[in-house]
């Protein structure tokens, strides 16, 4: 043994003998006790440790020995950045501001009554190569690598179909899963996330409870919910003459973004005693009153027509007021009427069929959003090469087949007819019905391609009517899986029809369930166009 080794042995011995030299370990929290301690699993054994910082079950921590055989622990990774769900102004629901943020001082149960749960208790991990705006998300969706460069993006969340919330400041991604309901304040609600594992979205219901917890990899971040009911909806000013309006408020209901304006509505304004002069001022440019003023000598309650123009209105609830000023011989009165309209995302019309699989079993996720008047909009055409074509849609009215040539860049419809964004198409029971596209501009929207590059999958389907989506695969189609909600018959244009039909459990758009994925039979290896015929 060299002198050097001998010295090192001596040093080791001395270090081991010193109480200040302790063994620290990396462990996983298996239990968080109410007394501020936690049980940390190390090498299969549980060690009780005091918390230097808040931890939750499943979190990776460093376990630090202290005096008298006691241990302390602290997370090995920082918590996530602030996540804010912010209510748009003038939201009439009794909800208020919902704020999720990270608090290193500990989890604090909300003190107010409203609690939350995710509407359908599921969220979905969607593979997106790039995404800066999830505005078309009806439900919260998962994402992957959404902001590798730290980009900020917004997520709009529909809450009980009434309004939307914006999640901001995601510089660390998060993901929620369908862990069901967590009772507050008795249970800890947490959000786990990992770097670049972005986003999180799901519908949130006002009806019952709770934030979610979820687990992504081994990194964990706190999600805290506070500030309930802090954003009080504006209260219409009290005016003794409000009853002069009949009705006293107008609700134009819910309309789709990019769609037609809601029908006009009318209200009567009592302007007595006559004669009188009256005038109307609306509180927002999207609301117009016709006529906006008048002089009455005989009519005691002139009828006013109100028109809403949603052009430029953001998605969400919009509320404004109408103030009438009535000048009579008895004095001057004002009367206020409130008017509201909700602009909904056209994503309501989207059919999402997830978990399409190629033969290699690689997940392929596809979204088919409906554009605003020019047909379908496909994003990310680069997934296809110039040889690929996706031929879309049999017009059941005419029998025509519509073709989209999926070349790189813009992919126009090849025919003069196309897909019309009709009001019917924008309903939940959307169906490709009448094809007229004046200026088709179509880009692909494939979220992910398969591993081998041989198969690109797209479906356009209607669960309620006969229609087809035709797919051409640049390679040999061996078998496909899909999770639509229809009975499926698979045909090939190149030859023999695939036999039989495949029953797939009915699911609604956006509710595809991986457990319902069914494999369709192979067409025997034809490299040609494959037609998916959907038979009701």
């Amino acid at each position, binding site marked *: 043994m060299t002198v*050097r080794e001998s*010295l*090192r042995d001596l*040093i*080791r011995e001395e*270090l*081991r003998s010193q109480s200040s*030299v*302790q*063994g*620290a*370990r*990396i462990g996983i929290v298996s239990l968080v006790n109410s007394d501020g301690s936690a049980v940390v699993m190390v090498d299969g054994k549980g060690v009780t440790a005091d918390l*230097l*910082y808040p931890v939750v079950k499943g979190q990776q921590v*460093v*376990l*630090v*020995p202290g005096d008298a055989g006691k241990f302390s622990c*602290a*997370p*090995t*990774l*920082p*918590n996530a*950045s602030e996540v804010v769900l912010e209510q748009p102004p003038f939201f009439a629901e009794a909800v208020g501001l919902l704020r999720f943020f990270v608090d*290193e001082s500990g989890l604090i149960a909300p003190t107010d009554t409203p609690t939350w749960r995710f509407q359908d208790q599921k969220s979905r991990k969607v593979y997106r190569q790039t995404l800066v705006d999830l505005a078309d998300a009806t439900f919260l969706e998962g994402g992957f690598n959404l902001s590798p460069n730290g980009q900020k993006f917004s997520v709009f969340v529909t809450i009980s179909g009434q309004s939307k919330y914006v999640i901001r400041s995601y510089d660390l991604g998060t993901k929620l899963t369908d862990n069901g309901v967590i009772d507050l304040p008795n249970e800890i609600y947490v959000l786990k996330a990992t*770097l670049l594992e972005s986003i999180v979205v799901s519908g949130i219901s006002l009806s019952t409870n709770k934030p979610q917890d979820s687990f992504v990899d081994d990194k964990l971040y706190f999600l805290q919910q506070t500030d309930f009911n802090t954003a009080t909806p504006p209260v219409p000013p009290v005016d003794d003459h409000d009853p002069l309006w009949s009705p006293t408020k107008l609700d134009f209901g819910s309309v789709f973004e990019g769609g037609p304006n809601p029908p006009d509505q009318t209200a009567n304004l009592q302007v007595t005693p006559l004669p009188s002069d009256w005038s109307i001022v609306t509180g927002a440019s999207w609301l117009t009153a016709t006529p906006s003023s008048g002089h009455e000598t005989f009519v005691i309650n002139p009828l006013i027509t109100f028109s809403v123009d949603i052009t430029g209105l953001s998605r969400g609830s919009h509320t404004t007021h109408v103030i009438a000023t009535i000048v009579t011989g008895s004095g001057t009165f004002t009367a206020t009427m409130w008017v509201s309209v909700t602009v909904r995302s056209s994503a309501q019309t989207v059919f999402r069929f997830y978990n399409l699989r190629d033969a290699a079993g690689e997940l392929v996720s596809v979204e088919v959003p409906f554009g605003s008047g020019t047909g379908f909009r496909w994003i990310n055409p680069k997934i296809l090469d110039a040889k690929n074509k996706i031929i879309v849609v049999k017009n059941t009215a005419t029998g025509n087949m519509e073709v989209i040539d999926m070349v790189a860049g813009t992919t126009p419809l090849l025919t003069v007819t196309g897909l019309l964004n009709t009001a019917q198409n924008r309903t939940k029971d959307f169906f490709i019905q009448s094809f007229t596209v004046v200026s088709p501009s179509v880009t692909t929207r494939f979220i992910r391609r398969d591993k081998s590059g041989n198969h690109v999958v797209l479906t356009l389907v209607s669960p309620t009517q006969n229609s087809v989506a035709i797919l051409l695969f640049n390679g040999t189609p061996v078998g496909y899986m899909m999770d639509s909600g229809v009975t499926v018959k698979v045909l090939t244009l190149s030859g023999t029809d695939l036999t039989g039909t495949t029953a797939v459990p009915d699911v609604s758009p956006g509710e595809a369930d991986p457990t319902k994925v069914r494999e369709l039979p192979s067409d025997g290896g034809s490299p040609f166009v494959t037609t998916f015929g959907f038979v009701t």
Partner: protein
Amino acid sequence: MSLRDTIKQLVRETMNEMAATEARAFNEQGIVKSTDSDGTLTVQTASGTYSGVLPGPKTRTQNEQVIVITADGKKVAL
């Protein structure tokens, strides 16, 4: 190198070795030199500069003073 420096180096080497092999923690003060793209830190201590240091429960900033704990071969800033 003086005998004193040689012994100090020897002690540091031994401590690092024990930290890695015996899961013993030798807490050191350090300065965050950089926060890296993978979320880890590069921390400079008296015994050397270490990269891949887990940031611990807080988000760290450059030049922040931290305690570096070695556990199971990993270094964690506290």
